[in-house]
């Protein structure tokens, strides 16, 4: 086990998988210079055939990923920011997500799309979205939201070796954060949540970028006698509903934290599923901690107003349990 930065863990996964399989290729805007940090050193090591800068044309890039995968390569497409999912949506929604079904199972599309999501850096509305909710609605796309360096490495390696279109969502602005990464071969399976902190009073499901504030919130709640259990689902498709239900069975309370806008967020989906199959386990309504239905503003104070933080999460937990914050 070694301490590594999030961005470094991603970079290691890319190196290892490209070394392991010569059919793995990576393309996207400015990847040769590794502008986003995660591709550092890849061009020098693997050359311009396998690591290639593209023009700025997301509609074409997502379609090219489909074509190159259909023709036999394992494709990693670097899409930079998750807002560009919208720009490249046709081939994502109409080709990538459907081609396997439409072709009666002939198409096999090993595609990993990497993009960074979330606000907090005054990148303004078009570079701060948490744009995974529409992906979940497509049916044929896996969605990964690693919150720690270890999971980032292990999930990315599993994705690259997989046989299905998969979006690897990097928590934006978290590249420098450190965490433990197991030595040697490290693969994390899809659809297995982890308990980031065990507790008995309230279940806090924290998606990706929300894990850090959720753990901070749990710490402050503990000081006032509330024992929160923090669940990191790690992957949204497939989703480990059983892990959430098992926790709710213990706590009877559920708060779901998601940096997406509230309406049709993943938090909404999780809340609906738990209310559906776990209604009898709940002692109170499910609460969602999400971004309000607004675009992310530029001004730091206005941005901070809409992105959930540890205080937002702890406040919702206290309210749910009917306990005011300690004075």
């Amino acid at each position, binding site marked *: 086990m070694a301490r590594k930065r999030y961005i470094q863990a991603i970079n290691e996964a890319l190196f290892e998988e490209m070394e392991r399989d010569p059919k793995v290729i990576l393309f996207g805007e400015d990847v040769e210079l590794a502008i986003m940090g995660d591709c550092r050193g890849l061009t020098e090591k693997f050359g311009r055939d396998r690591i290639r800068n593209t023009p700025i044309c997301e*509609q074409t890039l997502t379609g090219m990923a489909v*074509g190159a995968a259909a*023709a036999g390569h394992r494709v990693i497409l670097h899409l930079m920011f998750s807002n560009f999912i919208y720009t490249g949506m046709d081939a994502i929604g109409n080709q990538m997500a459907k081609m396997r079904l439409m072709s009666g199972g002939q198409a096999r599309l090993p595609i990993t799309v990497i993009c960074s999501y979330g606000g907090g850096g005054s990148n303004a509305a078009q570079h701060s979205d948490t744009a995974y909710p529409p992906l979940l609605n497509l049916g044929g796309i*896996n969605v990964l939201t690693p919150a720690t360096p270890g999971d980032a490495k292990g999930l990315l390696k599993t994705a690259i070796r997989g046989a299905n279109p998969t979006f690897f969502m990097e928590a934006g602005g978290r590249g420098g954060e450190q965490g433990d990464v197991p030595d040697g071969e490290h693969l994390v399976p899809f659809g297995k949540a982890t308990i980031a902190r065990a507790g008995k009073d309230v279940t806090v499901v924290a998606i990706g970028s929300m894990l850090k504030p959720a753990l901070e919130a749990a710490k402050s709640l503990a000081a006032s006698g509330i024992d929160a259990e923090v669940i990191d689902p790690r992957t949204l498709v497939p989703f480990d509903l059983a892990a959430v239900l098992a926790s709710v069975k213990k706590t009877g309370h559920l708060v779901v934290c998601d940096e997406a806008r509230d309406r049709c967020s993943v938090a909404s989906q999780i809340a609906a599923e738990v209310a559906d199959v776990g209604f009898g386990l709940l002692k109170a309504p499910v609460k969602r901690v999400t971004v309000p239905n607004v675009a992310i503003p530029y001004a730091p104070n206005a941005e901070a107003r809409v992105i959930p933080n540890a205080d937002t999460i702890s406040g919702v937990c206290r309210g749910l349990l009917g306990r005011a914050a300690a004075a």
Partner: protein
Amino acid sequence: MTTVSPSRDELFALYERMLLIRRTEERLRDENKAGNLPGAVHLYIGEEAIATGVCANLRESDMITSTHRGHGHYLAKGGDLNAMMAEIWAKKTGICKGMGGSMHVADFSKGILGANGIVGAGFAIATGAAYSAMLAKEGRVVADFFGDGASNQGTLMECLNVASLWNLPLVFVCEHNTFSEFSPSKTVTAGNIVDRARAFNIPCQVIEGNDVIAVWQAAKTAVERARNGGGPSFIEAHTYRIQGHLEAEDLFLGGQKYREAAEIESWKAKCPIKVTRKLLEAGGAADTARLAEIESRVMAQVDAAVRFAEESPPADAELAFSLMFDGQTP
């Protein structure tokens, strides 16, 4: 440069393939009218020379992307007729097990990366496939079929840029059939389509798309260029869509019209199959007999394919649940 022409035997083969596409689609037209098909069909009648002339220059390992009007491309690239008809009849034995239908016929094992219901979606898929082919260094070539309607999608310009910049083994084949769904293309298109490719320094040819020999020759040049590392080419082949945008379009038009009957008739006179037959008949009695043999062979194939489709079991209604992912539930 000397221009090579197809041999007489090759011309017979081109004729037979065009006729197979025509007779298949005439049957689909009639079956659609009779209400025997669950979904819409978009027919390629009158445009057969393009798919046939291009695909005659491709190997089985080469790849194509097709359009919503894709039966001709599928058959020209060697797709199985029975499996296509069963697909359109929504049967379990369909090439896509009944999950795709007419607009999505595909056979990946033969490099047919699929007909596509999104106009212009083939550009980027073909560009990605050509990038893969270039990296694999196995001499594979990709042909991307699209129409004049699709040429107004921005992705054409994006893909011309990438293909030229990266010198990809890709042949862009614009089937200029005069219509953009229900609009005459000239009413929605500025300039000449071929000039868009010229702007990216791609070698271009504008040809008479109803002349299968001209198509064959243009494709031969373009495919050889791609195979030998010479990069992409662009062929604009002029033709005419004899049928409507889709069968039963009258239901949508509600008495309105977007073209004159005389225009359709004038293009029927330039039918690629008729023109080719005339050339072959000039060979005398033996060739006329050979043409009659081809006609009865093709009709028998079409009849057998329809019978196969009709007699096949229906699609598996549960199949969708296992097809969204490879080895994973949806």
